[in-house]
């Protein structure tokens, strides 16, 4: 009877294609929006993830997310270096600074000032130039997306000069980094260079990056660093592992912005569209075949088998629709993979698993609503013409 169920489904081509379209569209909408949402929200902590050589981030205890950084006094660096279990600790500056291009235009940028000697936090993937060239005078490295933003439609050319806080900066490299949340160019320079590029506050140091000794876990070292807070004469510090700081930043944006609500509405609408189209069309399909189902019941098909037929029909359209929708989503991200603004956005297996679960729910709901009419149908109705 499975074969009969599938023939009944495919035989009504209009409704069959209608249900598949509904499921495919809902899948595309949900998968695409969830993927973009996950990609964009992940960008909030991308600059934390990009620092691969340090496991621990030490910051002012009032820091809420990576871009909001109360500066630390230099003495805190020595305090952290003195904590047992710390293999090394270096300073890092992170802030926003406006640059003036040769054309006279201004661009807001994110500037990282890296430890002069170790260059901890330097970009891992260079497209042009060498990270070591940061040790040259006035040297700056910019990310690829930032280069395109600053010098639109111009080919990459090292040696370009521009100004930061009336100080000359020389481009020595172009790198690839995880796209930041705010669409600003990301600049890297030495810490001592950043002291010139940045309008001066009393303190400049944003973060202390540290590495634990091999025999101590990063979490344990973080706890020991925070034990320094028992000395109430000093500023309170927070020490987080890279993963913890990434999630702290992410959670801030989830809780403090309208992004989840905005995307949530679109994703919910996609789900509702799926339920409405698939549910309504499937219900119509079942209602239009009510007499046939009644005849089958009269001829000896038990309710359990009828339910099995309807669920099979629902699962088939769900699988086909989901496959098409997933394919369209993959096609979208494949097609847009070269667009800088959409870099880093893509389908994750977890996303497709979640969307698959939603599609399964949609088709099962449609089948249950439709099946009710059939299961409670008295076979004797087929005698009534």
């Amino acid at each position, binding site marked *: *009877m499975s*074969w*009969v169920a599938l*023939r*009944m489904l*495919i*035989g*009504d081509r209009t409704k069959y294609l209608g249900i598949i379209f509904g499921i495919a569209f809902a899948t595309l909408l949900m998968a695409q929006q969830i993927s973009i949402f996950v990609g964009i929200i992940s960008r909030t902590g991308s600059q934390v993830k990009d620092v691969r050589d340090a496991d621990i981030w030490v910051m002012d205890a009032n820091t809420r997310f990576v871009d909001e950084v109360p500066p630390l006094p230099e003495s805190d660096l020595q305090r952290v270096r003195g904590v047992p279990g710390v293999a090394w600790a270096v300073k890092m500056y992170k802030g926003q600074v406006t640059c003036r291009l040769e054309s006279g235009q201004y661009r807001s940028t994110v500037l990282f000032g890296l430890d002069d000697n170790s260059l901890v936090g330097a970009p891992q993937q260079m497209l042009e130039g060498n990270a070591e060239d940061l040790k040259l005078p006035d040297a700056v490295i910019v990310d690829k997306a930032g280069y395109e933003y600053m010098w639109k439609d111009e080919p990459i050319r090292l040696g370009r000069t521009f100004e930061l806080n009336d100080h000359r900066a020389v481009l020595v490299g172009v790198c690839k980094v995880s796209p930041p949340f705010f669409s600003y160019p990301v600049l890297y320079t030495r810490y001592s260079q950043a002291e010139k590029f940045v309008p001066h506050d009393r303190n400049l140091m944003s973060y202390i990056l540290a590495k634990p000794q091999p025999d101590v876990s990063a979490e344990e070292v973080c706890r020991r660093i925070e034990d320094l807070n028992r000395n109430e004469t000093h500023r309170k510090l927070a020490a987080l592992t890279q993963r913890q700081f990434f999630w702290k930043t992410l959670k801030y944006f989830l809780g403090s912005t309208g992004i989840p609500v905005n995307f949530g509405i679109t994703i919910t609408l996609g789900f509702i569209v799926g339920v409405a189209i698939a549910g309504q069309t499937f219900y119509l399909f079942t209602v239009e075949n009510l*007499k*046939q189902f*009644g*005849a*089958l*019941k*009269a*001829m*000896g*098909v*038990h309710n359990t088998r009828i339910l099995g037929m309807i669920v099979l029909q629902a699962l088939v359209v769900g699988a086909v629709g989901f496959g098409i929708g997933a394919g369209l989503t993959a096609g979208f991200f494949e097609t847009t993979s070269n667009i800088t603004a959409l870099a880093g956005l893509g389908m994750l297996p977890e996303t497709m698993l979640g969307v698959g679960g939603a599609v399964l729910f949609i088709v099962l709901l449609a089948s249950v609503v439709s099946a009710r009419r059939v299961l409670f149908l*008295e*076979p*004797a109705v*087929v*005698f*009534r*013409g």
Partner: protein
Amino acid sequence: MELLTDIDLEAEFEKEASALEPAIRCTAVTKEFGSGDTRVPVLHGIDLDLPPGELALLVGPSGCGKTTLISIIAGLLDATSGKVEVLGENLGGMRGANKVRFRGANIGFVFQQYNLLPALTAAENAAVPLLIAGWNRHKAIAKASEMLERVGLGPRMKALPSQLSGGQQQRVAIARALVHEPRLLVCDEPTAALDAHSGQTVLELIRDVAVQPGRAVIVVTHDSRIFHFGDRMITMSDGRIDDVKQVENLRDDETRGSYRGEFN
């Protein structure tokens, strides 16, 4: 499942007929719908015995309870009171799943509106009862094709219902109703949707192919043009059986004419 030859089948049916057990026995059957103030009695104390090997016509005006009675006989509805024995089995004592299985194995249906599955070909539609019984698809279609040959639709086996005329669709329905060798065939207004010629053809088919010694056939109708096909006529009105006449009395025009006036 072993396919029986025509000779084996005939012998089986003759054995059944010789037992003289009625195919259908209704004893004081009543049926009411609704409850309390909305209770509507539809059948009042129906007593009926129908032997196998006959074509019985159930006639009466609209709303007299014909469809309700055959629904109860076919196991599609439960009687409110009374006893219904079909092919020796007490339907009242059967649980739901057993009743469904009994129906699938022993009863064939021909509906007024054919109720063929539009996506299946004629052969596939005719094979449905065998598929329900668990037959292999190819064997079921092969057996159904043989049945379609018997009802004169051999060249149209691969046609969809939409490609068949009303009469042809009803013949597919008859093939479907008989493919699993049921011992009871229930036909509800099989000619109502057909023109006079097609209706005659369908009843001829039922008469020739369906009526066999071991099989009872009951046809609900108020088409007087087909009265002469019956072996027995059961007349109903207001939920009661008024009369049961044998075939000889239906052959003359006068008697047929009186019934025509009564039910049209």
